[in-house]
């Protein structure tokens, strides 16, 4: 089959065999994950190393992490369509693709994670509106619909599809009202990102997780939305950089990257200040009220105070400060360091807010709970990575993801 009509005009792509080889490797990893997924669905959650103390584990972390990392989509949408930062149009397509991958992965992981996947829809049908998880499920699904809608026009820009009048018009018309979708997406994201923070923050039986509330929302609600908006762009930039590295060409102009990085930097700085205030209040007021000192929560060898330092200083203030300074973000090494630290930082935060919550003993006579994921859990968590690589590879090969690519890489 001749690929040429499928590849956007004016850009160069690697050879078919090279691409096929790459896809074969990634597909093999994907199949490993699919096999694990089959085992889990067929035999049940006994295939995992979760237990009654660790009901939430690797998967919930993966969910929270991918949604935070996919936060670049809603935030770039917000900046582009609502704030009017048109420069970001050059990166928003990728943000949407990443968002789509992240959210579809999150939904898949949730479907694996629940004990009765065939009853999963009860969360909608029998919704308990007071549960943070209900809010997560609704907003996540709705926002996934929005992301799909945002992704469709990009798919329709495939040269072959674009030739069909219906798809061409549809793409055009969807573009026309994209601001409305984007605004809806921002609204939904605000809530589900927040609700994911709320998932831990409302657990008043878990002193490590519980935070004071503003109205019905715990602090973590706002911190999660904020951190997703702050660190999501880091991941978008990181994926851009990795794609550039692999394809060995520049895909997005520095102006767009630097603008995005700068906004991200300021979001990180403000977030980490808020997070610090939250931590101080929690350490000195909330936790002691329940009979805990801060160090009680960091009394294990795995979960020691170094984690808190890493999260706030190394992966918070440092990348934030790099990104808000012009010289920092314009130095490619510092920029890369900052966005990598940022991605680690938000993932670490989500890890702590899921796994450390479970690990901390609430009774003085209990030991710290330990957990090591089974290979099935690891494989199903790697599965979305493989899936993401496949989608990004296909999208990059066949769709005009980077509007500036042609201009930056003219074909002689």
């Amino acid at each position, binding site marked *: 089959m001749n690929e040429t009509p499928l590849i956007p005009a004016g850009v160069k792509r690697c050879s078919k065999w090279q691409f096929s080889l790459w896809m074969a490797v990634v597909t093999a990893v994907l199949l490993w994950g699919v096999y694990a997924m089959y085992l889990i669905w067929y035999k049940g959650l006994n295939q995992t190393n979760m237990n009654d103390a660790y009901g939430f584990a690797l998967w919930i972390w993966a969910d929270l992490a991918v949604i935070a990392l996919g936060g670049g989509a809603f935030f770039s949408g917000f900046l582009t369509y609502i704030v009017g930062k048109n420069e970001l149009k050059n990166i928003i397509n990728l943000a949407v693709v990443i968002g789509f991958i992240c959210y579809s992965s999150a939904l898949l992981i949730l479907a694996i994670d629940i004990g*009765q996947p*065939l009853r999963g*829809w*009860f969360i909608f049908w029998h919704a308990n509106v007071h549960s943070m998880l209900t809010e997560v499920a609704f907003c996540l699904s709705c926002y996934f619909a929005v992301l799909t809608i945002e992704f469709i026009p990009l798919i329709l820009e495939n040269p072959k599809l674009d030739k069909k009048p219906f798809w061409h018009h549809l793409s055009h018309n969807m573009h026309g009202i994209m601001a409305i979708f984007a605004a809806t997406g921002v609204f939904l994201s605000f809530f589900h990102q927040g609700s994911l923070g709320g998932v831990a923050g409302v657990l008043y039986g878990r002193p490590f997780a519980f935070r004071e509330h503003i109205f019905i929302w715990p602090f973590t609600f706002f911190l999660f939305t904020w951190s997703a908006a702050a660190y999501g762009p880091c991941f978008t930039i990181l994926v851009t950089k990795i794609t550039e590295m692999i394809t060995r060409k520049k895909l997005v102009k520095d102006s767009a990257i630097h603008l995005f990085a700068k906004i991200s930097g300021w979001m990180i700085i403000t977030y980490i200040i808020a997070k610090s205030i939250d931590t101080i209040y929690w350490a000195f007021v909330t936790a002691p009220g329940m009979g805990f000192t801060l160090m009680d929560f960091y009394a294990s060898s795995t979960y020691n105070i170094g984690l808190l330092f890493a999260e706030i200083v190394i992966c918070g203030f440092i990348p934030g400060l790099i990104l808000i300074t012009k010289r920092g973000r314009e130095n490619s090494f510092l920029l890369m360091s900052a966005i990598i630290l940022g991605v680690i930082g938000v993932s670490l935060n989500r890890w702590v807010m899921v796994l450390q919550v479970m690990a901390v003993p609430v009774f003085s006579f209990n030991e710290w709970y330990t957990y090591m994921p089974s290979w099935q859990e690891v494989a199903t968590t790697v599965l979305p990575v493989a899936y993401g690589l496949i989608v990004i590879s296909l999208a990059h090969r066949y769709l005009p993801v980077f509007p500036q690519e042609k201009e930056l890489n003219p074909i002689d």
Partner: protein
Amino acid sequence: MKIDRRSFLTYTTALVLGGAAGSMLTPAPWKLTDDVSIWTQNWPWTPVPEDGEVTYKQSVCTLCPGGCGINVRLIDGRPVKIKGLEDHPVNKGSLCPMGISGLQYLYGPSRVTSPLKREGKRGEGKWKKVSWEEALGAVTKKLAELRASGRPQSVACITGSDQGTTPNLIGRFLTAYGSPNYIRSATAQDAIEQAIYLTQGKQGTPVFDIENADFVLSFGSGILDGWGSAGRMFNLYGSQKPAKKIIQVEPRLSDTAAKANQWLGINPGTEGALALGLAHVIIKESLYDRNFVENFAFGFDDWTDDNGKTHDGFAKMVKNFAPDKVSKITGIDKAEIVSLARAFARASKPIAINGRGHGAIPGSIDESLAVQSLNALVGNINKPGGISAIPDSNYAKWPEVNIDEIASKGMQQPRIDGAGSEQFPNTRFLLNRLPEIINSAKGESPVQALLVTDANPMYTLPDTAATKKAFDRIPFIVSFSPYMDETASHADYILPNHSYLERLQDVPTAAGISRQVISLAKPVVKPTYETKHVGDSFILIAKALGGFIENAFPWEDYEAFLKETLKDQWRKLKKKGIIEIKYDLPEPLAFTFNTVSTKFEFYPTARGSVKQKQNSALPTYTPVPIEGDVQRFKLVLIPYDSIRLAGGAIANAPFMTKTVDDTVLKKQVGLLEINPATAKGLGLKEGATALLTTPKGETTVKVHLYEGIKPGIIAMPRGLGHTAYSEFLADKGINVNTLTGPIEDPGSGLDMAWGIRAKLIRI
């Protein structure tokens, strides 16, 4: 329009997509989603128990000798729940976890569901299902052969009890057949009974009237760990007055010790010394019951026999047990000893009891005598809140049994286990000696056929290897066990008894209770499998053997036999489930004893002839020799009992094993309790794996660091390490009996071992 491949693909795609979208508008996908979830709510492999009419049946639990009343809830005749019987005089509604687990002994993979004949090697687990005719026929044939060859005495029978009509029926069978070798499994009750016999001259079931006592001094008795009738003890503890004191003396902080008012950590095996030390203080400070000692006791003061020879009295003898010395022996602080003695003597109704843990091992006869003497010192004999004995029950009216010449000859042979011999005249059964006797026999085994019912010696006897070796020398073993226990799995034939909820059985008074209570265990459900009441099996074998043996069993079956032998009592028993024979305690100041002196004998004269070596029959303290070289084995291993682990003939139900803590069993490995200080010296951390070696065997264990155990002592529970039963019990932990061995009490022949030396190496 030309349909080429491309447009075909396009149209197909459009059709599929359109079809999918369109079908969403139909009810089909929604209905399917709903149906699928309804399916998950009704998975065919998740059982739905049938509902029906609720009824209750009352019976008695016979899983242990405790004799607690049970109330069984049934749905359309199907038992679904067991709870304690509220108005039963033994347990008053309380029940132990084993009793509550009862339904798991009715069904489950451990049940033997039909007669089995061994196919492969012994213990290999290869069986052939056979008919009852074949199984009974094979046993009859073997027994007939042995009789024909003039060796009826080479048939031995091991049972769990010798009280009640079923054991008596089996005893009658052996008598008619011609074998004196009826052997009851021994417990601490044997030593206590003998001590009571020696001091009071009464043969009977011991009574500990803890109900009415106000100060309970327990020398290691696990009164809240399953000692005696567990239901009764728990009920007593729960309803006792706050003023009642429990003092627990044992090297390990057991559940009993944890609930006691005071726990005294003692060097294991030195309980007897402590009892004498307490006696010392009580006598020295004149705190004893002068009236009882002066008027109703013999041998307190020095006395002169008919030959004019002067003997030391108890008072003189205990002068050797001053607190200083006893403190050194027992490891208990001198001041504690003195204050305990005073508190015990000054209490209005103090009682001292012994028998370690559940009482699996009889223990030294001197120790039991010392404890009985302590009770006598405070005048606590034959009165409320004290110690006495209920005469062996004789409610069944047995017709005389006539025996033929072969049987008569057989019955005149000495017992194989040596009980009742010149060496051990006061001991009735000595199962612990059997393996050694068989193993050391020259030529063929003195036991040619072994019948086992309500007992599991292959598991419960200390030194499992020796027991197995002995059993391997017995050519013919028959088990009547309803469960595939260790002994059954080494048998040649299994003639499975009904499970306890399926069979009729009278249950006589259990040890400890101050009233004579005979209860009737009634079938709450029809037999589920092809099993037969053990009484019926014996009657059928007797009938098949013919002659005098057949004549000794003129009844159609066990029920008919029960009806005829119990006579009047039967109607009452059947109707009420219980007959209670009021046991009247003698009036105070009217103490009469059946001893030579007609008094309570601090100096047990009946013991005189066997204590020649010692010159005196007085109980004294000589350290129980403990097996193992102290240089090689620096630690001491003691077995302990837990209410959540059945260490006896009937093993744990899955529910009980489920309650066992992960500090006792972790996956398939048993945990050994060790004091952190001792562990540190051995470089062992919590959960570390170690090799445990004793003179009897070795095993891999994990260690559990426990402050509640005396440094230098290590402890393992009884009840784990089964090799038979099912996956719910087998190969979990180690059977502590594989690591220990019996030590024969020179006075009684009973096993008096309390532990064994051991070595622990980190691996």
